[in-house]
């Protein structure tokens, strides 16, 4: 099956700076792909190359199997985009703004009503965009991206500027989008918690390089499980847990025991608790900790250490 979006060693240099460095990413059909990275990591440059807005220095990008550089128009027909800069004409109403794009795309007039309905903006469509809140502009931008029901949606920071209710609405909307419309969604965001709740797949870009990519559930499953514990005596607990095959680290808020990938935390927690209690160590709290996307992101985008990290395997 053809991936909805695929890049091969996609590279873009600005002078001597490699903004995007040999990025090979694959967004499966009907996935919600969270594209993560700090400001300046290369997210927007990558998205712009996918949309044909800037040319890659080398490598290729394909939308629904169509090479963007060779057939920009063909690829563009399969993409709807919500970009950080909305580009709405403030002197026109929301409906008029959508109608301009609809005209350029050669779509029937009913298409504007359809997308307004989808983003629940019909009641405000006759107001000028200058009177819109940022959240309303964001939804209008989403409506515009969906004109013509393109199979691929590229959304740059879609939750930017939304209030908590707006973020929740957007989250629900984006999560259900592939099932409702069959579209594949590629979205970039800073909000790791949001991406974690929406995305089926993630890609993490750091300093222009794609450092991690895959199905989110699988990435989490493949990671070593962690057990968080709070005890009265960290030194004694460390000594007691020495025979267990785990990496221990401690911080102000307690200790973290990292198991080997594939180990079952449900089996390890009772054994550890028993050993600690028998040794007279007071266990205040202990339990398996779900690996968060934030943790995955921090690990993947952490700068390479000068000396190897020193987890204490006991």
């Amino acid at each position: 099956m053809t991936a909805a979006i695929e890049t091969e060693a996609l590279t873009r240099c600005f002078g001597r700076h490699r903004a995007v460095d040999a990025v090979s990413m694959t967004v499966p059909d009907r996935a919600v792909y969270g594209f993560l990275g700090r400001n300046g990591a290369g997210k927007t440059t990558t998205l712009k190359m996918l949309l044909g807005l800037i040319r890659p220095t080398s490598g290729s990008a394909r939308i629904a199997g169509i090479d963007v550089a060779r057939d920009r128009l063909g690829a563009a027909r399969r993409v709807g985009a919500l970009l950080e800069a909305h580009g709405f004409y403030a002197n026109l109403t929301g409906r008029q703004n959508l109608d301009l794009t609809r005209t350029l795309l050669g779509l029937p007039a009913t298409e504007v009503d359809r997308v307004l309905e989808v983003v629940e903006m019909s009641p405000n469509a006759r107001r000028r965009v200058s009177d819109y809140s940022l959240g309303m502009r964001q939804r209008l931008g989403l409506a515009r991206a969906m004109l013509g029901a393109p199979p691929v949606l590229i959304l740059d920071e879609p939750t930017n500027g939304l209030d908590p209710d707006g973020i929740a609405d957007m989250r629900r909307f984006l999560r259900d989008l592939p099932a409702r419309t069959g579209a594949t969604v590629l979205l970039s965001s800073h909000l790791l918690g949001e991406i974690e709740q929406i995305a089926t797949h993630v890609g993490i870009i750091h300093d222009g390089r794609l450092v991690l990519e895959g199905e989110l559930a699988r990435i989490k499953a493949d990671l070593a499980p962690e057990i968080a514990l709070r005890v009265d005596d960290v030194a004694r607990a460390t000594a007691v847990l020495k025979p267990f095959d785990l990496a221990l680290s401690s911080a102000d808020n307690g200790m973290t025991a990292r198991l080997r990938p594939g180990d079952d935390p449900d089996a390890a927690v009772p054994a550890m608790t028993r050993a600690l209690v028998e040794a007279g160590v007071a266990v205040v709290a202990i339990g398996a900790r779900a690996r968060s996307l934030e943790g995955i992101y921090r690990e993947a985008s952490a700068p390479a250490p000068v000396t190897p990290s020193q987890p204490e395997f006991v």
Partner: protein
Amino acid sequence: MLAVLSVEIRKLNRSLAVLLAVAAPSLIAVFTFFNLMRGKAPQPWEMWMVSSIGIWAFFMLPMSVTALTALVAHMEHGPKSWDHLRSLPLPRWRLYAAKAMVVLAVVAMMSAATLGLTWGAITLATTLKPNLTPTGPLDIALYATTMGKVFLAAILMVAIQLWTALRFASFVPALVLGIGGTFFSVVATSAKAGVFFPWQMPVNMLISSQAWRANTALGLGCGLGLVVMALAVAHLARREVL
């Protein structure tokens, strides 16, 4: 292309560009009205109409083109809509060509409005002071032809101003260029070198004593103007907007 053109026209709805298109010719008409009202004896139609074309050609036209192209370009630069427009599945040159056509059409309408409003101002003034009714024939065909030549000679200036306004997101380069061009157009109106100066080419259409100047300015302004406009559209469509 018609779809892109219709979109460009609809964007002007309630915009400052429309206000400008009405204001600039109106100012010439208002000036003509009060100028006629302060007169003591009637003047020929030709004097009023040609002086109106002259004011348009050497000052108001370059200023209007500067402002109009800056406003039309800023409609996209302001809300940063280039990325949206350029990501759409349509050849990019059409976006820029449509802008060029709309600007030329608005300038043509402003030129016609200058003639029409001047006539209206004179008619209104002579209704109030019938003794100042212009003398001689009202040779509409002659004034329309002259204004038409002024418009054609202005195409090179429009192309340069439009390219500058679209190329730079800041409106400062386009304004500096336009104000500078207009300045030299005003202070050196009769300079022979003006025939090669884009901002002065339109006013050369009014110099009937030296046919070569009018013909050269018209040929360069229109012929070279269309070539430069085509090159500007091609360049803008090809360049990356970062």
